[in-house]
């Protein structure tokens, strides 16, 4: 049996795999992800994933959801049931999400048709279009992907409303309109959204509002949501989070875990 400390990493994206790789000589690493493939947002087919996953030196437990941390043990549950593992440190590398309605300060009612970009894209990939005339809040990667995927499954036109301006090049699609440096302040319609009012005062008609702006850390391990006992957070907040950013975050987290472990071992 090894007497190396155990480390649990939640998130098998590039960040988590990089962190595992950097710690493989000082700890027994287990990487847990609720998706049954590695790679996170970069995907299981990405070159980096294909290289890192087998080489990271960790025990990969994919398709299990980590749910509770108490500073000593991590509880995860999957198709074989719940499993506890003791760990000297926990790394949260579970990625990011776009901001929600309340975080964006969008007033008005809560009609149907207001969804996160992640939802709009998942549904589009399964052949379901959230709206023929979606209004997309945001100007980064999530927003651009949502615009192109919704157009690909039949949206007549899409309007991007970008509080920070467009973060990438202009979409090459005449049916995608862009309003920069403006934001949605309220939505209206019942039971489905019908209009969105912008800060500039204009009201636009729409049948879906796709939230694709801003970045918040995604966290769902109870006991490690904002701060946790011996928990290290490795979540590059960018849209998109590039491979370089993910690697850097993973490396930084590994360094933090090393010093945690060192502190433990010092008498």
């Amino acid at each position, binding site marked *: 049996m090894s007497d190396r400390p155990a480390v649990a990493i939640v998130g098998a994206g590039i960040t988590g795999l990089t962190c595992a790789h950097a710690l493989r000589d000082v700890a027994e690493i287990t990487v847990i992800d609720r998706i049954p493939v590695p790679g996170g947002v970069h995907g299981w087919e990405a070159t980096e994933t294909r290289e890192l996953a087998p080489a990271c030196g960790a025990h990969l437990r994919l398709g299990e959801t980590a749910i509770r941390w108490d500073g000593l043990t991590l509880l995860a549950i999957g198709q074989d049931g719940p499993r506890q593992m003791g760990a000297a440190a926990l790394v949260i590398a579970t990625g990011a999400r776009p901001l929600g309605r309340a975080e964006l300060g969008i*007033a008005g009612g809560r009609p149907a048709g207001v969804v996160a970009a992640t939802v709009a894209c998942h549904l589009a990939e399964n052949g379901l279009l959230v709206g023929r005339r979606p209004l997309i809040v945001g100007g980064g990667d999530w927003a651009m992907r949502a615009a192109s995927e919704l157009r690909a499954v039949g949206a007549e036109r899409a309007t991007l409303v970008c509080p920070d301006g467009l973060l990438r090049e202009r979409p090459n699609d005449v049916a995608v309109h862009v309003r920069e440096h403006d934001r949605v302040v309220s939505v209206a319609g019942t039971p489905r959204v019908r209009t969105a009012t912008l800060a500039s005062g204009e009201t636009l008609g729409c049948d879906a509002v796709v939230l694709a702006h801003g970045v918040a850390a*995604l966290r769902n391990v109870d006991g490690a949501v904002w701060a946790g006992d011996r928990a290290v957070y490795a979540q590059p907040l960018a849209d998109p989070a590039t491979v370089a950013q993910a690697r850097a975050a993973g490396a930084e987290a590994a360094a933090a875990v090393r010093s945690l472990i060192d502190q433990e071992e010092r008498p």
Partner: protein
Amino acid sequence: MRDVAVIGGGVVGCAVAWRLSGTAARVTLIEAAHDLCEGASKGNTGIATSGGDCHPGTLELELVRRSSPGWEALCACLDTPFHRIGTLAVALTEEDERRLPELLRDAQDTGAAAEIVTGDQARALEPLISEEARAALHFPDDGIIDSIRLTIGYAELAARNGVEVLRGAPVHSIERDGDRIVAVTAGDRRIATRSVVNAAGVEADTISRLAGGEQFRTWPRQGQYWLLDRELGGRFRKVVGGVPTPVTRGIYCVPTTNRSLLLGPTAVDHEDRTDRAVDAETLDHVFHAAQRLAPSIAREHAIKTFASNRPASDPTYRIAVDAEVTNLVHAAGIRSTGVSSSPAVAEMVRGLLEGLGLPVGDQRPDAITELEPLPRLLGHPRPEQLFARDPRYGQVICACEQVTAAEIAAVHGMAVPPTSLEGVRKRTRATGGRCQGAFCLSGVSFLHSLHAGRRPPQIAVSEPDATLGIGAHDV
């Protein structure tokens, strides 16, 4: 021919249906919206008050006091979370502090347990209370309750006992014969009935008018709320509020039964019954008021904001047989304490119906009196027991609220199952967590479509015409 038609599927209507369901009466519960619990019963602070801040000598107080001691037992029967954690009404200013002895006397007149505690004692009871708190009124018998699970629990037990539940059935006409109602038409159904209970909330005046009953007015009293993260709510031990004024109870910080935190409500009377819009100014006001009580609250903890309309009227608590229509019983004008008084309101309505000669007396020997609890993974002390019972407890669908495929499947097998994603959320909390469905809405909708037998383009977010999307090739 039904014995009782209950109009309104909020907490009061469902409680009445529950109370009648064990008797010989044939009952139909009618709800206009696509699901039960879509009005004030869905959006409220979830406080089961012990009555200390109700006005002495009122029917409201009497019914709240009668309901208060029974919550633990009732909630155990209805698979509804309830915790009797108590409320602290905190005095932040000298003026507030001076009012406390008078409020204590009023509270003592109500019969509810109440005491004045010092600022330090208040902070010992609830460490998150502001250093500015000078003193507080403590109501130890107040509790927190899941008002949605309570409402749906009442209806579920009622349905299992044979109550017919009609959803998506707005009442648009009521037939009379002389001074009696003979039928109610709801949706496309004409329901012949011996009596009607008006529990229609904000629309109670409309129902009375359709029946040709007493003319009174109900109007929406809007409250706006914040919902904050479980990680913060879980640290609260008490319900924390300000010192109530004659006009309003004020804004509370309420830890919910699933450990999230609610801030609110405001109280603004308005005219538009369908208006549930939040606005930045009001939300700011709520947030600041809450922060004054508990400075640890921060915007980054916010998950969601919403508005809901309580049914206001003058007078409140109209629980009586109508003066014009002899078989119409009102259970209306129950503005702020619908949840807190629901068991006693239901019993009072039963008594009024009995007085009209309806068969709502003895309990049937075959009536079931409790629901089998649905175990949930969130916070469960022995998840391996859940998994052994059903391996779908190993499939976490909503990671933020830790809702599993087993729970989602189970609620679709209920007597009053969800017919929309909002219905799934109300019964399981899936998509209601901090990511607000960003990562699970598609998975939840997939399971809902399987269980409910709907093709993806038919999946409803709420009302049937508010679909999640349209089929890509149906454009």
